[in-house]
C-alpha cells in the first residue's frame, strides 16, 4: 500500500518574501483519486510542479516534505526534490505539446519501457503497441508509427497516459488532463484515468476545474485558493457540506454570480493573513493572521478562523 504524503509544502519566488504556496499538506493513498480544485491562479499547477521537482529556476522550495511510503523525496539540506518515474509521473494539460513532435509515438512509449522495465528494443516495441491498445487506441500498431501531429488531442492524451503507465508509477499526477480537449472526449479521458488508477493500483492527483468530474471520480478533494489549502476531505463531505467560506463560494460560482460584501478592514491579507480574506464576507481582524489547517474529523481539515458550522449555512 503506497501512499504519497505532502506536508507543509511552501514555495516562493527567490528574493521575495511572499509565499506562492503556503503550508500545503495532503495525502493520497494507492488506488485513490484526490481532486485538486480551485480557480485559475490558485496554485494547483504550482503545487504539481513542486511535487514533480519541475519548479522553474526562479522559484524555490522553501519548506515541506514529500514522502512516498515514508521515503523522503525532499533533500532538506538543499531543498531540492529527487524523484524517479517509478514513484511519480505526470500527465500534462496540452497533450500535443507534451509529445516530442519529431518522434513517432510508438518510439516515445517504447523508449520509456526500455528505460524503466529493462526490455529489449523489440520487446519494448511490442509492449508499446499493447499499451496503446490498453489505453483505448484503435489500430494501435498503425498509430504507433504515427507522429503526434497526425493524431487528435484526445489520442495524444491517451498516448500520454500510455507513457505514464509505462513508468509503472506509484502516484500519477494529472494536471488538467482534459482542459485542451473537446467536451465529448473529456469524459472518456476521465474514465480512462479512473480505470487506470483502479486497475494499476496507483494513486492519482487530479487537478481540474471540473467540479462535476470531481464529484463523479474523486474519493477526496483538496480546495486551493491563493496558494493556501482551504479545505480537504472526502468528496461527498466537502461538496455537500463545505465548511470553508471559499469552498461554499467556489461551489456557488457555477450556479450564480456571488457578490461578497466584504467588510473594509485595512488588513493586508496576502502577507500574513488568510488569502481569501479580501473577498470573504466573514472576514474580521483575526483573519489578518494565517489560519492553520485544523482537523475537524480524521480526514477532514479546514483552514479558516470562522468556518461554517450551522447546517443552514451549507446550502
Amino acid at each position, binding site marked *: 500500500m503506497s501512499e504519497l504524503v505532502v506536508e507543509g509544502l511552501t514555495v516562493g519566488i527567490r528574493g521575495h518574501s511572499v509565499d506562492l504556496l503556503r503550508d500545503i499538506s495532503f495525502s493520497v493513498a494507492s488506488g485513490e483519486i484526490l481532486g485538486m480544485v480551485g480557480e485559475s491562479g490558485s496554485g494547483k499547477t504550482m503545487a504539481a510542479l513542486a511535487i514533480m521537482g519541475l519548479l522553474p529556476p526562479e522559484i524555490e522550495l522553501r519548506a515541506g516534505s514529500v514522502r512516498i511510503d515514508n521515503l523522503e523525496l525532499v533533500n532538506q539540506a538543499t531543498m531540492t526534490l529527487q524523484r524517479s*518515474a517509478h514513484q511519480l509521473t505526470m500527465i500534462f494539460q496540452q497533450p500535443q505539446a*507534451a*509529445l516530442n513532435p*519529431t518522434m513517432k509515438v510508438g518510439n516515445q512509449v517504447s523508449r520509456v519501457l526500455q528505460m524503466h522495465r529493462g526490455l529489449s528494443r523489440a520487446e519494448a516495441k511490442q509492449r508499446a503497441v499493447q499499451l496503446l491498445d490498453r489505453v*483505448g487506441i484503435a489500430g494501435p500498431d498503425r498509430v504507433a508509427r504515427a507522429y503526434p501531429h497526425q493524431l487528435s488531442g484526445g489520442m495524444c492524451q491517451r498516448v500520454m497516459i500510455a507513457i505514464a503507465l509505462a513508468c509503472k508509477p506509484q502516484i500519477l499526477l494529472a494536471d488538467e488532463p482534459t482542459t485542451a480537449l473537446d467536451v465529448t472526449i473529456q469524459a472518456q479521458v476521465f474514465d480512462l484515468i479512473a480505470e487506470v488508477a483502479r486497475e494499476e493500483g496507483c494513486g492519482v492527483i487530479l487537478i481540474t476545474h471540473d467540479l462535476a468530474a470531481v464529484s463523479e471520480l474523486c474519493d477526496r478533494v483538496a480546495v486551493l485558493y491563493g496558494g493556501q489549502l482551504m479545505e480537504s476531505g472526502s468528496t461527498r463531505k466537502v461538496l455537500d457540506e463545505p465548511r470553508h467560506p471559499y469552498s461554499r463560494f467556489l461551489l456557488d460560482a457555477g450556479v450564480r454570480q456571488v457578490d461578497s460584501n466584504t467588510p473594509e478592514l485595512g488588513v493586508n491579507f496576502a502577507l500574513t493573513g488568510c488569502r481569501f480574506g479580501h473577498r470573504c464576507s466573514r472576514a474580521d481582524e483575526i483573519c489578518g493572521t494565517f489560519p492553520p489547517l485544523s482537523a475537524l474529523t480524521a480526514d477532514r481539515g479546514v483552514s479558516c478562523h470562522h468556518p461554517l458550522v450551522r447546517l443552514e449555512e451549507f446550502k
Partner: protein
Amino acid sequence: MSEASLSRFVPPVFSEPPTRKSFIRRQPMMTIGIATIVLLIGFAAIGPWFVGDPRATFPGSSFAPPSWSHFFGTDMYGRDVFARAVNAARLDLWLGIVISVVATIIGSLIGLVAGYWGGWVDDVVMRLTDITLAFPGFVLAILLVTVLGGSSTSVAIGVTVSFIPYFIRLTRAEVLGQRELEYVDGAILAGNSKLRVALRHVLPNSLKPSLVQATLVAGWAITTVGGLAFLGIGIHPPTPEWGVMVAEGSNDILTGVWWTALFPGALIVIAASAFQFIGDDLGSKR
C-alpha cells in the same frame, strides 16, 4: 493488464503522400534547384573520367574558341577549359557541401549547449560568437586562410569557421524556445538524462532553421571559396578551381577572349543559385 478498455476511437485516416507531380507544381524553384545540383554533382562525379587531363598544356592551341573538340574553348596555355571546369566542379561542390555540413554540425551542437545549458556557458559562447560575427564572413575567412596557409584543407577550415557563428545563433534561439515546451519536461519526467533530452528531444526539434541555412551556406561557401581563389588566397593555380579559372581568365577578357572566364564564372553562379533556390523554398514553406 486487461485487453478491454472503456472506449475506442475511430482510426485516423492518414493523408496520402504527395505525388511527384504535385511536388513540382507546389515547389518549382526547389525542383529546379535540386535538379541543377543533381546534374552538377553527376558531372563532378563521373565527368573527370571522360575529359582530358585538366593540367595538360598545349602551347600550340592556346585561346581556341569554343568548338566541338573544346566545348568551352582553351586558355592561354592551351588547356581545355571544359576539362578544367569539370574537374573544378568536383573540388568546388565538395568544398561547398563539406563546409556547410561541418559548419551545421559544429554550429548546431555549440548552439545546443549554449541554449540548453545556459548560464555562464551561454554567456561565453554567445560573446565569442558576437565577436566572430563582428567580422564580415569573407574578411574572417581571408584572415583564417592566410594564417593557415594555402591548401584546399585550410580553405575548408577557414570558410567553415567563418560560417559556424550563424548556426550557433540560429540553433541557440530555437533551443531557447523548445526547451520551455512541455515535451521536454515530459522527457525529463520519464527519466531521460539531461544529455539525452538535449540530443534526442531538443536538438531534432531545433534543427529546422539550421537546415534551411545549411543549403544557403552551401551556395555561399562556393562563392566564398571562389572569391578567395580569385584574390589569390588559398587555392592556387594551376589547381582546377572555378575561382582560380576566373582569375586567370579575367585578364583575357580585354583581348576579346571571353570563354576562359565566363564558363567557370557562370558555373559558380549556377551552383550558388541552385542552393539558394532550395534554401528559399525550404525557408518559406510550412
